[in-house]
C-alpha cells in the first residue's frame, strides 16, 4: 500500500494514502523517513515526520506499515544510549560517522553483545500469563523473560544464546515467546492495580531528602530559569538515587552536556550497589537540534522503557530534562497542523497530555504479583523564569513535589538552588514517618526545628534590613548566624566534590551538629554571655560552586 506526498509543512507532510489508521507508523519518501499518522481526512492523511523533512520532494512515495510507533523491550538495553526513536546511537555512529543522517539506522541491531538465556521451566509446565520462563544475566541484573499473551502449556524451551527473532519458548497452542517484544509507545503497559504506598526515594541531595522528600512511585518537577542548575541537579539525582533502574531523557537539550554526562557516568559507581552507574542506566537523547517530532516521541519512548523495568518488579526512576522542550515540540507540531492555539500558542490538549504522562508514575502490583515503581522527575524551563506560564502551571496540578529553583540563589552560587519556602512535597508526612523508623526517631523533629529556624531568619532579615544586623539582639544574631550555616553547610551541596552525595544518616548528622551548636550557644546567651565573646563555630568550607 503506497501513496504519494502531496504537501510539506515543517515537520509534517500530507499524503494521499487511503486506509491508514490514526497513529500508524509510515515510511516517508525514498529515504524511508519514519513518521506517524496524526490526522485523517477523506482526501488525505497528515503525517508527523520524525526526521528532517528538508529535501523531501512532492510525489515521493509513502507506505503504511500497519503498526504503531513502538519500542523494542527486552534484555540488553541497559548501558546504552538511544535517540527519541530508540535508534542505538553508538551503533549509528559506527554506521554513519559523527553526524546523524536522516533515514538511516533502522537496520542497526539493538544489542551490542550477544546474551544467553537460561531456562527456568520445562516443556509440559503449565504457565500463567506474565509468569517467569527463564532469565538473561545482564550485568548486575537477572533479567526475567515472562510469558505474554495468556496462560498455556509449554511445548519447548531452549536455553543458550538468544537471537532477536528466534523464540526462547513455544506453547502447545502454537504461540511463541521471544526474549524481546515490541510495545506501542503511547499505550501504558498493564499492571494488576496501583498501590498507594509512599516509601522514601533517597536522592542523596540533603535539601530534597530532608525538607522536600520524594517518594517511590511519586512525581516531582523542578522549574528554573537558565543557569539555575536544573541539568546538574537532574544528573546528580540520576547518579545517586536509591533505585534499581534510571532512565534519563535528554529532551531538546545540549549535546555537550550529554557528552559530559556520559563521560561522568562511564567512570562512576552507583553508591548503593557499588556497580558501574551505566549498568543501571538507559539514556534517551534527542538534543535541541535533532528533529522536533522525535523530541515529542522521546518522552513516550522513555516512559515505555521505564514501565518495562517496573513490570520486572524493579524500582525505576525516569528523569527528563526538560519537559518544556517536549511541550514546545508539541506546540510546533500543533502549529504546523494549523490547530486552534490555546494559551501562549500551546495546543489546548497540553494539560491533558501532561496529566496522562504523570499518570504513568506510581507503585504497582505487577501482573505476576510483584511490586514495582516508576518515579517521574521532570525539569521545566519556564520562559524568562516566569512560573505562571502554561507548562509549569499544568504540571503543578499533577505533580506530587515541586522544587523551585531560584535565580537569586543560583547567582549567589548556592546549589542546588532549591528555594526552601516556595518548594513543597506532598509526600513529606509519609516519607518522614518512614525515615523516623529507618534513620533516627528525631528525623521529623529536626525537620521542624530547621524549618522554624529558616522561617524565623526570614522575618529577622526584614528587621535587619532596617536596623542593620548590629542592631539586633544577641539571640537573634545567633539565629541568623546559624541559619547562614544551615544554608551554606547543609542546604548547599557542591556537585563536584565528595559532598555531592549524602546518605540520610550523614544528612541527619550534619544538621544535628549545627542545631546542637545552636542550642548550646543559645543556652549560654540565656545565661548572660555575650555572642561576640564566644568562639565562632568552626566554619565549614563554603559549599558554593562555580
Amino acid at each position, binding site marked *: 500500500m503506497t501513496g504519494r506526498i502531496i504537501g510539506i509543512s515543517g515537520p509534517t507532510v500530507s499524503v494521499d494514502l487511503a486506509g491508514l489508521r490514526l497513529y500508524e507508523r509510515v515510511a516517508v519518501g525514498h529515504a524511508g523517513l519514519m513518521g506517524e499518522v496524526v490526522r485523517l481526512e477523506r482526501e488525505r492523511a497528515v503525517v508527523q515526520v520524525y526526521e*528532517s523533512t528538508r529535501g523531501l520532494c512532492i510525489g515521493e512515495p509513502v507506505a503504511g506499515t500497519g503498526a504503531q510507533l513502538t519500542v523494542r523491550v527486552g534484555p540488553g538495553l541497559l548501558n546504552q544510549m538511544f535517540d527519541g526513536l530508540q535508534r542505538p546511537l553508538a551503533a549509528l555512529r559506527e554506521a554513519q560517522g559523527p553526524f*546523524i*543522517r536522516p533515514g538511516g539506522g533502522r537496520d542497526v541491531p539493538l544489542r551490542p553483545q550477544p546474551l544467553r538465556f537460561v531456562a527456568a521451566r520445562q516443556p509440559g509446565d503449565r504457565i500463567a500469563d506474565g509468569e517467569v520462563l527463564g532469565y538473561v544475566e545482564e550485568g548486575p541484573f537477572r533479567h526475567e523473560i515472562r510469558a505474554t499473551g495468556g496462560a498455556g502449556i509449554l511445548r519447548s524451551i531452549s536455553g543458550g544464546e538468544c537471537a532477536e527473532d528466534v523464540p526462547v519458548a513455544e506453547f502447545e497452542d502454537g504461540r511463541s515467546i521471544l526474549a524481546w517484544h515490541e510495545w506501542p509507545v503511547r499505550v501504558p503497559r498493564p499492571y494488576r492495580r496501583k498501590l498507594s504506598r509512599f516509601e522514601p526515594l533517597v536522592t542523596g541531595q540533603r535539601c530534597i531528602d530532608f525538607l522536600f522528600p520524594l517518594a517511590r512511585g511519586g512525581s516531582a518537577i523542578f522549574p528554573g530559569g537558565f*543557569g539555575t542548575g536544573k541539568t546538574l541537579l537532574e544528573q546528580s539525582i540520576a547518579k545517586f538515587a536509591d533505585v534499581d533502574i534510571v532512565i534519563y531523557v535528554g529532551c531538546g537539550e545540549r549535546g555537550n552536556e550529554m557528552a559530559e554526562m556520559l563521560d561522568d557516568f562511564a567512570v562512576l559507581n552507583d553508591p548503593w550497589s557499588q556497580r558501574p552507574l551505566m549498568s543501571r542506566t538507559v539514556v534517551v537523547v534527542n538534543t535541541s*537540534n535533532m528533529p*522536533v517530532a522525535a523530541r515529542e516521541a522521546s518522552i513516550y519512548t522513555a516512559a515505555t522503557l521505564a514501565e518495562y523495568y517496573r513490570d520486572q518488579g524493579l524500582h525505576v526512576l525516569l528523569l527528563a530534562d526538560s519537559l518544556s*522542550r517536549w511541550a514546545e515540540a508539541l506546540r510546533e507540531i500543533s502549529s504546523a497542523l494549523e490547530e486552534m492555539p490555546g494559551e501562549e500558542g500551546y495546543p489546548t490538549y497540553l494539560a491533558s497530555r501532561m496529566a496522562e504522562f504523570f499518570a504513568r508514575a506510581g507503585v504497582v502490583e505487577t501482573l505476576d504479583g510483584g511490586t514495582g515503581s516508576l518515579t517521574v522527575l521532570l525539569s521545566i524551563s519556564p520562559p524568562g523564569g516566569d512560573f505562571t506560564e502554561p507548562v509549569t502551571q499544568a504540571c503543578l496540578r499533577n505533580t506530587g513535589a515541586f522544587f523551585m529553583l531560584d535565580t537569586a540563589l543560583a547567582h549567589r552560587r548556592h546549589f542546588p538552588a532549591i528555594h526552601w519556602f516556595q518548594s513543597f512535597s506532598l509526600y513529606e508526612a509519609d516519607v518522614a514517618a518512614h525515615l523516623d523508623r529507618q534513620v533516627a526517631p528525631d528525623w521529623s523533629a529536626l525537620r521542624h526545628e530547621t524549618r522554624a529556624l529558616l522561617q524565623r531568619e526570614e522575618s529577622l532579615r526584614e528587621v*535587619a534590613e532596617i536596623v542593620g544586623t548590629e542592631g539586633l539582639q544577641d539571640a537573634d544574631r545567633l539565629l541568623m548566624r546559624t541559619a547562614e550555616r544551615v544554608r551554606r553547610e547543609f542546604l548547599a551541596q557542591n556537585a563536584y566534590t565528595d559532598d555531592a552525595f549524602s546518605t540520610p544518616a550523614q544528612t541527619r548528622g550534619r544538621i544535628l551538629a549545627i542545631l546542637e551548636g545552636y542550642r548550646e550557644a543559645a543556652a549560654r546567651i540565656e545565661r548572660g554571655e555575650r555572642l561576640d565573646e564566644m568562639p565562632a563555630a568552626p566554619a565549614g568550607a563554603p559549599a558554593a560552586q562555580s
Partner: protein
Amino acid sequence: MRLSRHSYSTLRSIQGPLVFVDSVIEARMGEVVTIVFPDGHETEGEVLRIERDTALIQVVGDSRGLDMDRTRIVFTDAVKRAPLSLAALNRVFSGSFQPLDGLPMFVPDAWAPVAGLPMNPVARARPQEMIETGFSTIDGLNTLVKGQKLPIFSCAGLPSREVAAGILEHARTAASSAGLATASVVVFVALGLAHHEYAYYRQTLERMHGEFVAFINLAQDPVVERLLAPRFGLTVAEHLAFTHGRDVLVVITDMTNYCDALREVSTAREELPGRRGYPGYLYSDLASLYERAGRIKQQPGSVTLLPVVTMPEDDITHPIPDLTGYITEGQIVLSRELHQRGIFPPVDVLPSLSRLMQQGIGPGRTREDHRAVANALYVHYASGRDLRRLEAIVGREGMGEGDRHMLDFADAFEREIVHQGAARRGIAETLDLSRALLARFGLLGP
C-alpha cells in the same frame, strides 16, 4: 526524482519576501530556486512550504521590482549548499556567499548543505581545553573552553564589540601559546551591522594577522540574508574544523538582528506568533545554529561559538537572550552600571556563567588553586553585592564593621579584577591578582 530545471511564471501572490507559485510539479522542501526579475536580474529563493502544486518561496535578497506576469521562478532540484575550500580563508563574502573583496569566487573542493546535520551525541567529545581570552572575568571566573558556545549578552550602548574584538585578538589555547592567530581560524559573521561597527571589526581582523573568513550582512542588506549568513559561516567552520582539523572560533554579531529577521519572515508567512511576536519555533531554530559548536571524539578540530546578543530594553528575560541562555553553555553578561563607572570589560560576574568551566580548569589545565580562588571571589563578591542593597537603606554608618569590610571588598574586586582596560592578562596573572586581593581582605582560605 526530477531530471531537469523547471521554470514557472505562475505566481499567485507576492507578500514582502514571500512568493506563492502555482502549478509546480514536484517541488522539494528547502529547494533553491532562482528568481528572474522582469528586468532580467536574478536572485535566489528557497522553498518553505508546499501544498499540492503550490509552493511558498522565500526570496533571499530584495524583492522590490517583482511582478505577477513577467517574473520567472526556476526550480533547481537542490537544497541550499555552501561551497567549501581552504581558498575561502582570508576572504570576505556577503550574506549570500558572494565575494565582497573584489576577488573572483574560489573554486570549491566540495559542497555541503547549509542546514548541517545534528552531531551524534555519542560522537561528541567533552569540551575541556581552556581558551584563554585575556580577560580576568572570563578566564578566571567563567572559563571558555574549546567546543563551547558562550554568548555575550550586551545592552544597547555597551562595548560588546570591544569585548568581542578583544577576545578575537587575544584568544589563545593552552596547546598553542603562539596564539589562535596561527593555530586557528576565526569565522566572523556580521548580521545587520551598522557600517561603523563593521569597520571596527574589519580593523581587528586585519590587525590580528590570523586567518579568517568573514560573512558580512550590513544594516542595509537584505533581511533574509541574515537567516542564511550564519548557516554559511557555521558550514564553513565545520568544514575547517572537522575536515582540516582547525580550531575555529565563530563570532556572530548580532543575534538579535537574526531573530528579528526570523520574526519578519514568520509574520509574512502568517504563522502563529509566540512571545513578543517571535515564532514558536525560535528555540529549535536557534538550537540549529548554536548546537553546531563542538568537538568530535578522536578527531582534531573544534568549533567554538561566541554569539553577541543585544538584550532589547536591557531585559535578560526577553525571548532572545532567554532562549539563547537555555541553549548555550553559559553567558557573559555586560552591565550598564559597571560601564558607567568606567570599568572595562563591564562584565557582571554574578549572572555570568560558564557551564563547561569545571572541566577546563584545575591541575594540569590551568592551576591547582583556580577553582578555590574562583569560588572564594564569587561568594564574597556576592555577599558584598547583597550588602549594597542594605547600604542603600541604612547607610554605611549603620552597618557593622564586618559588613563594611565586605562592601569594600566588592568595590576593590570591581576596580582591580574586573577592570583591566586594554591590558591582556594571562590566567596566571589573573589568579595571582585574585589571590593577592583575597589575602588583603583576609579572605584567602588555608
